[in-house]
């Protein structure tokens, strides 16, 4: 029985949902994989909150420019048509609702769209939030890319987040290795099932009541 797709397949699945012309911010970590699967020949603009719209792929190893990095501090390139701006302008772009999509990782997503992805609340851990809270409330659509379950088998889609929140009611869709869920006023709606998953099997795994797509 197949119940999970690979992280690359999931990235490709997310990329397929991003229309040409969209302006997209891909969060640090797994979401950056989405860039590898954006359709060739289509123009989708990548925004990085440290001040660049029109971000290109990683440079050749011999052509790294330390002044040109993404939010994860990795070396990147700029496409023809790119524009640079300062941090206040960059976050105004996000906060003002001008980005079409951002893709973020998550520790937990609640059925009303709350996102927890910046802190596990462990005592002694050093807190760091970066641009996560701004991204969470900024884009027109906030997509979460995550495994359905933690490594120890705990659901990451929950009734109420136990971890400290990143944003309230901000997530529009959750792409997991088992299925895709829309966040709606009625809670999680199963948009697409991968492999042999069923709504019933997901309800059992999550301990949540799910709504099948019409």
């Amino acid at each position, binding site marked *: 029985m197949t119940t999970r797709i690979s992280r690359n397949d999931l990235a490709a699945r997310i990329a397929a949902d991003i229309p040409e012309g969209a302006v997209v911010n891909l969060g640090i970590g797994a979401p950056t994989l989405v860039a590898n699967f954006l359709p060739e020949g289509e123009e989708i603009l990548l925004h990085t909150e440290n001040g660049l719209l029109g971000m290109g792929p990683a440079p050749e190893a011999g052509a790294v420019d330390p002044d040109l990095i993404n939010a994860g501090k990795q*070396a990147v390139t700029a496409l023809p048509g790119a524009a640079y701006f300062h941090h206040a302008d960059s976050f105004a772009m996000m906060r003002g609702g001008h980005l079409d999509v951002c893709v973020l990782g998550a520790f937990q997503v609640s059925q009303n769209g709350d996102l927890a992805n910046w802190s596990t609340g462990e005592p002694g851990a*050093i*807190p760091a*939030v*970066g641009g996560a*809270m701004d991204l969470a*409330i*900024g884009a027109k659509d906030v997509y979460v890319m995550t495994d359905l379950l933690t490594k120890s088998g705990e659901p990451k889609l929950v009734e109420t987040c136990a971890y400290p929140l990143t944003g*309230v009611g901000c997530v529009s869709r959750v792409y997991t290795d088992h299925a895709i869920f829309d966040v709606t006023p009625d809670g999680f709606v199963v948009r697409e099932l991968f492999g042999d998953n069923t709504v019933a099997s997901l309800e059992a795994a999550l301990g949540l009541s799910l709504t099948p797509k019409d």
Partner: protein
Amino acid sequence: MIDKQVADAAAAVAGIPDGATVMIGGFGRAGQPVELIDALIASGARELTIVNNNAGNGDTGLAALLAAGQVRKIVCSFPRQADSWVFDGLYRAGEIELELVPQGNLAERIRAAGAGIGAFFSPTGVGTLLAEGKEEREIDGRRYVLEYPIRADFALISAYRADRWGNLVYRETARNFGPIMATAATTTIVQVDEVVGLGHLDPEAVVTPGIFVDRVVAVGERPWLRDGVFVGGVDLEGSPLAASAEEAS
């Protein structure tokens, strides 16, 4: 004649007292004013409050300032990184205070200080730990928290080119916090690769007008720009290249 150039980095940071609040530009290593930070370390100023996006990388620049024990408190959005071991150690030992601010609120609060805004309602952080204790208000059906300006006594920033009036242009994503920090400090100190003649910067492309700049020091073109190819510093993941690899090349 207006000439904001000073002779060297030591002169640039002269007069920063113990206890000062100092904004330091840069996002990670990009745009970090390393020569000015080194001069600040050499100046011996202590009990500083630092405003930066991060809390230092590796053992140089801001991390070295922290390691020297000169920083009492840091205001930033993202202290914890793969190479933030200096900060991590100080924090765990209780030797540095941390004020964590979401990155966009950090940027907007710095801008507000420079723009004379008394406070503003931001949607970022609403309903989270980082908004606890802050005034909240619903406006047109959306929740906001009230955020106040962040000002500084000094800003140390890095730009690409300047003229003697202090007009600045930056380079790529090294621009980041420089333009807003320049507006929010009583005294703004800038290191640049090069000072060009007045009128050599395109007035349509000046990012920081000279009104925001007090002192400019030219630190020379970075080798990887001069040679046309990058030969050191960070790898593709942003990690510092091993010193041995640099020496071997």
